[in-house]
């Protein structure tokens, strides 16, 4: 045997051993769903109470009501869950039975790949009860997940700093907001905090200006078609640029994170350093966690984003989104029953009582006790149409290119046209 032949044999041996080892790793047939004993795996994003405790209770109650069913419920950090754990589990064929599903582009990608169970018929009654909030989790008219919380983005503000600056009512138009900013600055108070270091909080400002510039018809047709030729998309950036010229934001906002530490945008509001922040419905929890006593400050209040003059946008259109759960295509039927229980009026009322968010089910509206969440719920009730956050609506591929192009406007190195170019380039590469 010469050296070359020997090398070849060794390589063949090594490869065959590798293949054998890999084959041994392949999962054996999953027998869950057959026979009496069924285990349902449920993944959610609650890593602290009250929500983590509520989900554990819900799982235990479902086990008690369904003998032979075991529910393994686990909470993971939000981005780890959505960006790493769930995609890997789906791709490896070992998906959890019930798991958190982001609306818009993400539910579309998962449904089109055949990973999600179509709930349209199985949960028809519940879908009708929940109503309009289910729309962001629909793909081509079919329902692939159900929301348990839903809210809109608005401006969180410090009533004490507003009083100090002599502002007696919440701004209703963009000009009112600019006047309020000047009044705050005159008192030496920074008007607005934005966590542009994390990109998406700056992105939300542009999304909101796009909602004001674009008609509902444009929003509803352009986003699924990924067609950004309408001039309103450029106008959104121009309005943002004009607003940025009034210098309303905190020092160093380009490197400010959104939610971590006292120097984050939420931390600046929490500790009375900045008067306002434009942020989603979860913000009272974040702000509460960043104060010295870990309580939501009494001065915190909320108002909807002011209307912007001009543009085709309908002032009653708001921007928001929520959290929902879907069922894996391979899950046993009983998993759908668990999903229905999670989203039932009774559990949704308990969810609202915890103050963890605004329940999506209308029957839970009266159970909301937190005053800030009540204001958001009122804003939601007054909305003619809720546009899902644009990065979520467009899908994960768009998030970074879009938000980076928007932050470039914030940093003075990008133009409104660049944002539209980023959108078109990303769409072209899909």
């Amino acid at each position, binding site marked *: *045997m*010469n*050296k070359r032949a*020997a090398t070849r*044999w*060794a390589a063949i*041996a*090594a*490869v065959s*051993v*590798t293949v054998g*080892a*890999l084959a041994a790793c392949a999962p054996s047939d999953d027998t869950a769903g057959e026979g009496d004993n069924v285990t349902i795996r449920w993944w959610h994003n609650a890593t602290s109470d009250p929500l983590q405790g509520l989900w554990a209770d819900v799982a235990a109650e479902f086990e008690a009501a369904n003998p032979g069913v075991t529910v393994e419920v686990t909470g993971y950090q939000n981005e780890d869950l959505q*960006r790493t754990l769930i*995609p890997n589990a*789906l*791709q490896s064929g070992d998906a959890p039975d019930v798991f958190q599903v982001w609306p818009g582009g993400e539910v579309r*990608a*998962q449904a*089109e*790949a*055949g*990973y999600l169970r179509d709930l349209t018929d199985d949960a028809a009654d519940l879908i009708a009860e929940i109503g309009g909030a289910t729309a962001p989790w629909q793909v081509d008219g079919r329902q692939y997940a159900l929301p348990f919380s839903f809210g809109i983005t608005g401006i969180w503000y410090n009533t004490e700093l507003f009083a100090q600056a002599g502002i007696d009512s919440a701004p209703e138009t963009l000009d009112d907001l600019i006047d309020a900013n000047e009044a705050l600055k005159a008192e030496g108070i920074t008007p607005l905090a934005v966590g*542009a*270091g*994390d*990109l998406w909080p700056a992105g939300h400002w542009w999304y909101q200006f796009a909602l004001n510039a674009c008609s509902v018809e444009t929003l509803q047709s352009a986003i699924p078609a990924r067609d950004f030729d309408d001039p309103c998309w450029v106008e959104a950036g121009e309005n943002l640029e004009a607003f940025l010229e009034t210098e309303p934001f*905190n*020092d*160093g*906002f*380009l*490197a*400010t994170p959104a939610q971590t*530490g*006292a*120097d984050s945008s939420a931390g600046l509001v929490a500790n009375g*350093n900045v008067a306002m922040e434009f942020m989603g419905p979860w913000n009272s929890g974040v702000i509460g966690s960043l104060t010295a006593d870990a309580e939501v400050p009494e001065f915190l209040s909320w108002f909807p984003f002011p209307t912007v003059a001009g543009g085709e946008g309908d002032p009653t259109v708001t921007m928001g989104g929520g959290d929902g759960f879907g069922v894996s295509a391979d899950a046993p039927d009983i998993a759908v029953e668990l999903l229905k229980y999670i989203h039932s009026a009774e559990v949704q009322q308990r969810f609202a009582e915890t103050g963890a968010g605004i329940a999506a089910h209308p029957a839970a509206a009266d159970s909301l006790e937190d005053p800030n969440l009540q204001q958001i719920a009122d804003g939601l009730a007054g909305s003619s149409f809720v546009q899902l956050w644009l990065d979520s609506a467009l*899908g*994960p*591929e768009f*998030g*970074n*290119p879009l938000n*980076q192009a928007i*932050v*470039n406007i914030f*940093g003075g*190195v*990008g133009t409104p046209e660049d944002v539209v170019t980023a959108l078109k380039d990303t769409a072209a*590469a*899909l």
Partner: protein
Amino acid sequence: MTHHLTAGPAVSAGPAPTPAAPARRRAGTGRKWLEIALFAGPALIVFVTFVIAPVVLAGVYSLYNWNGLGPLERFIGLDNYVRALTDPLFLTAIGNNFTILIASVLIQGPLAISIALLLNRKLPGRSVIRALIFVPYVLAEVIAGLSWKLLLSPRGGVNALLEAMGLGEFTQPWLANPDIALWVMFSILTWKYLGFAILLMLAGLQGVPEELHEAAAIDGANWWQIQTRITLPLLAPTIRIWIFLSMIGSLQLFDMVWVTTKGGPVGATNTMAVYLIQYGQGQYGYGSAIAVILFVISLAVALVYQRFAMRRDLAGAVTSGVR
């Protein structure tokens, strides 16, 4: 060809009483390969499964438009590479990697050598200084990064210190100013990794024989001549190894940037690895193309450097051409 593979010391332990030389050779060869397979096989399998296969797979994925879900079926050739190499943000990131690489070699290197030469002399408190200089390197990247992020924020310790010293006009949102952020980042990296460079240089200095210094001193050489004519040439292998490690570290730079700025503000501190994480989300094909570009650049730099600068240090390695 077969000759040097026949029974050598490795198989001499075996009782081989049979007379026929060709038969013995065959048996010996078989045993030798069995031993090689037994000893090298497990390591080879692990290496192929977890290193070679993923590299090859990344190369395959990079030719597809793939969101990580569903089957791999939309072949797009080299489009991902074209897209990456025409994205100004990615080109900025490559430029930042090379800026940090060159700055590391030109600034950290001389600094580390000077401090090592100083610490190699008999100084009061030398061991304490040596330990202190090494402290930042021992800290975890995330802890060091978060500490600097807090210190350098607009309301952070650095600005407070400047104010207290009456230097209020020099206060800055250090990591938020795109004009200086990369150099602030480089300063943090220097603070973090200089200790490692100094440690390497000190270790190298231990290998410089004292007799040479004495001989030179007797011949009338001054301290400066001794350092430039004797110490530095003898330290050269250590310096070359450090440059190599520093270059690879600069090209792969991720954790410190991710923790402090995530590549911002407006891409000023972006690096290839940070861009890979940000833009690979939901685009596994594109992310794989970035990974392959990063791999090829690192490999090319490493091979060129090994081939030309470290030829003598690594005699017998893959790239040692002239023998």
